[in-house]
């Protein structure tokens, strides 16, 4: 009897916490999204789809959806493209390559708040590093974080700077798994470097690209810290990404119903994206024999 129970006892602690803080909250969010509640009033009346209707009719939601999509569409290919090219160079095992890899990887384990604060200074108008450098070339000061057309690009830059080391490390591992003989054969055939990169490296590293694509899109749709520290979603909503909007509705306005409805919509969107990606890209992934 006890023997049969053993595995359950081993998994129980993890399962209890997963259930309490991951799975039950999904249903709780769904339930709350059909209610009106401000966290203080004693009752929370059922209001049907009203929270969803209000959300879908609000400009804030569509703005956030647009800004977040833009952020993802611009930053993910930039990250992965740059990372693959850099990884193709850094795949060699020499001391200086190791050091450079370490330097590039460092930001991905560093505090996001610290990075956001440091880059708030880098891009600040009057005393920032970027404007100081521009100044030495005789160029005028740019209001990076106060200009609605530039602020999102700054966030994309900071996010890329922080995350690219992780992408590179993963790509290097993927590249190391490609059999050497393929490159040797290509060299015998007189393949040009760019050609080899496109015909051998890129297709064979596809499983890694797929993995990175999935996690970086999900990550991009959940960006919050750099927004909260650097721009608060401004100027004029130009960087008001979805999780920032969720935070504002749920924890600044304390509109629990509408915040939950937004959480559910975002959840459906992300799970939908994950399924769609595995349908479309999953089939095109090349795995080595």
């Amino acid at each position, binding site marked *: 009897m006890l023997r049969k129970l053993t595995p359950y006892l081993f998994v129980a602690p993890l399962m209890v916490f997963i259930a309490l803080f991951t799975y039950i909250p999904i249903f709780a969010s769904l339930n709350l999204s059909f209610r009106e509640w401000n966290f203080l009033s004693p009752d929370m009346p059922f209001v049907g789809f009203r929270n969803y209707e209000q959300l879908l009719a609000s400009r804030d939601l569509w703005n956030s959806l647009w800004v977040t999509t833009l952020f993802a569409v611009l930053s993910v290919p930039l990250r992965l493209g740059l990372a693959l090219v850099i990884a193709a160079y850094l795949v060699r095992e020499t001391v200086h390559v190791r050091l450079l890899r370490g330097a590039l990887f460092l930001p991905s384990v*560093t505090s996001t*708040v*610290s990075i956001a604060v440091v880059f708030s200074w880098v891009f600040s108008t009057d*005393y920032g590093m970027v404007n100081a450098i521009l100044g030495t070339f005789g160029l005028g000061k740019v209001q990076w974080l106060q200009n609605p057309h530039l602020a999102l690009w700054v966030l994309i830059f900071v996010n890329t700077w922080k995350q690219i080391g992780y992408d590179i490390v993963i790509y290097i591992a993927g590249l190391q798994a490609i059999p050497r003989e393929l490159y040797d054969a290509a060299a015998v055939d007189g393949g040009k470097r760019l050609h080899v990169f496109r015909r051998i490296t890129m297709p064979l590293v596809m499983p890694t690209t797929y993995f990175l694509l999935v996690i970086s899109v999900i990550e991009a749709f959940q960006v919050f810290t750099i927004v909260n520290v650097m721009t608060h979603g401004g100027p004029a909503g130009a960087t008001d990404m979805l999780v920032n909007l969720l935070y504002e509705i749920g924890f600044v306005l304390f509109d629990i119903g509408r915040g939950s409805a937004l959480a559910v919509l975002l959840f459906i969107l992300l799970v939908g994206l994950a399924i769609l990606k595995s349908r479309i890209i999953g089939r095109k992934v090349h795995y080595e024999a």
Partner: protein
Amino acid sequence: MKPENPILAGLALVAGLLFLSPVLYSIWMSFQTVDAYYAGELGFTLDNYARAVGQYNFARYLLNSLIVSGLVTLLGITFATMAAYAFARYSFRGGNFLFAATVATLMIPSHISLIPNYLTLAKVGLLDSYAGLILPAISNGFAAFFLRQYIRGIPKALDEAAYMDGATSLQVLWRIIVPLSRPAIASMALYIFITEWNNYIWPLVAVGKQDLYTLQIGLARLYRINPGEGLIDWPLVMAASTITILPVLLGFLLVERHLVRGITMGAVK
């Protein structure tokens, strides 16, 4: 390893320093007086650190971060290892389902649980407490998944030999599986610690009392309240930022290889 080309090595060094220059400069700035900084002069002072630690309570925030990240790591790695062991070594009814549910947590965006977890902890009176910061972060599906894959690679004959000698399953876990999985457990523990150390949104919503701020919250607040009059006191902010970065930075330099190996093993397998 191939012999070094000194020119390439020099270029790599410059590229690395250039890439990290914003952070390096922020550390340098933390040793400047605010007057010297704004006047564009050179100075050296430890006063910013003294003020961050004393007046602005960063010693307390550092302690909070250590307590929270430490306990999350300890409990998280323990639970993940136990579950991984069961998933790897036992076939039991519902086991596949529970394993799938564990892996599926990797795809579930964490923001969905933000409001419900806040309400749950409010209901049981655990907001504004260490427990409130720690409990929602303990379960780590990735670590459980990763360790299960690793444990499956350990020969089962070792377990069986121990059972022959009359060992219990707990002894097998503790005496055989854990010592043989040490590199995997170490890299996962490190991964959990760093993730929790840098966690921002949960402590932001779960904590209002200043005495419970973690470094991340303390730093974000310090930057926002802008202690300089009119001009931001950047040297002070950078001292606080350096305090926030430093522990992980030192840990990283000590165990970089472990960490990178752990991360890539998880992705490529």
